């Protein structure tokens, strides 16, 4: 069963999470539910640092044994850091999707974009209605 979604961040309908540092930096990854659906992650295509992304546009690609999925940017901005550890150990996403399996940090132009995303409760509710 998927781990509960932490309260300290926001969620998209595409199963990404976005956690603000209180300022302009947002760390993002995919949810535990998403990693369960993907099954074992074997390869992550990370964005280049410095790349500009728009909210809900593809930012990374996650390949699992079973399928391949685009991962979407939860907020607009510039990629300032990526999780290099995923290159050698992509399974971090399976083990700790909400922590060590983070994908990228984005310096956002507009922190208020986060307000348009779901809370943890909202996301859990959304999962109940959309189990797959």
């Amino acid at each position: 069963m998927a781990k509960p979604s932490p309260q300290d961040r926001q969620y998209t309908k595409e199963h990404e999470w976005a956690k603000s540092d209180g300022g302009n930096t947002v760390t993002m990854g995919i949810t535990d539910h998403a990693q369960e659906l993907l099954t074992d992650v074997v390869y992550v295509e990370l964005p280049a640092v410095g790349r500009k992304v728009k909210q809900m546009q593809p930012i990374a690609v996650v390949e699992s044994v079973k399928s391949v999925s685009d991962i979407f940017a939860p907020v607009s901005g510039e990629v300032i850091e990526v999780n290099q550890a995923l290159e050698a150990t992509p399974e971090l996403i399976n083990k700790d999707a909400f922590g060590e399996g983070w994908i990228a940090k984005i310096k956002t132009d507009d922190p208020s974009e986060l307000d348009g995303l779901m809370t943890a409760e909202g996301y859990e509710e959304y999962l109940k209605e959309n189990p797959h």
Partner: protein
Amino acid sequence: MKKTPLYERHIAVGATMTEFGGWAMPVQYSSVIDEHRNTRSLAGLFDVCHMGEIEVRGPQALELLQWVMSRNLATQQIGEMKLSAITNRKGGIIDDVTVYKRGEDHYMVVTNASTREGDLDWILKAKQEKGCLKADVTDLSDATGKIDIQGPVAQKILLEIVEGDLGSLRFYHAMETRVAGIPALVSRSGYTGEDGFEVYTTAARIGEIWDLLLHIGNPHGLKPTGLGARDTLRLEAGMMLFGHEMCQTVTPFEVVYGWITDLDKDFIGRDALKKQKEEGIRKKLVGFEMIDRGIARHGYPVWAAGEKIGEVTSGTFSPTLEKAIGLAFVPVSLKEPGTELEIGIRSQRAKAKVAPLPFYRRKK
């Protein structure tokens, strides 16, 4: 979505469920790769109740099956099972099935999940066409439960609760026996490339066998194993999946089923297949492994010398070989192992090369 008799058990242990052929099936219980490796090294237990079982009985049962099946069943002995294709008039594959001879004039055809109803209709039509009125065709799928136990220690585990001489049961042979005291059909066969068994009993009692096997198998390392690992296991073993490698516009010769196509007897599609064999095939299913990084997937295009020349039918990351592998159709001129291909993976073209099948063969 349809549910197997074991559905509640999968939910209870927190399996990730997926839709497959109209059924809600467990894709993984913990991890596809762990379940895959565990089946290769110890044993895996698979819910395959979604598959279809069609019984054909009566004095004309063999005559009907001979007309429907690509495989010559004339010499099949009681207790023997045969892999066969069912082909349409053009030789295209309607399904790949196993045929069990359970007694004189008594057969069981085991179908894929998504093809069961089509197969039944097809066999019933063939019965009319051939006038095989003395062949009774019955769909036993809903009443039947089926589980596979696969892996090097599968026999050791099953031995504890099966009656009869399991040890001397030969590959692709079956025995009518009891498992946990419950009447069952057990064959030495499977879809993983490992030693193992397929176990059939009633849908009502399959759960008892499932529970007991997991209980006694636990100390030996037996684990429930989902469809995710089933797919990676079969792909490593070079086995095909209906709907991926096979469909109604693909013939047995174009895939790796020439050996189950017996042109020396008459069956639906024989003439077209005979003609194809004489004229030669144009495309062929081959195995490939990726040279560049990336994983090829079902439907991705295959390129050679700047031209799109084929299509990937299955692809995955192989947990045993730890590289990306797959199956694809290519022109026959490119079918030799070592031939370089390119696979269109999203916006890129990644290098791959034709590889001999199977990718994985167990040590005996």
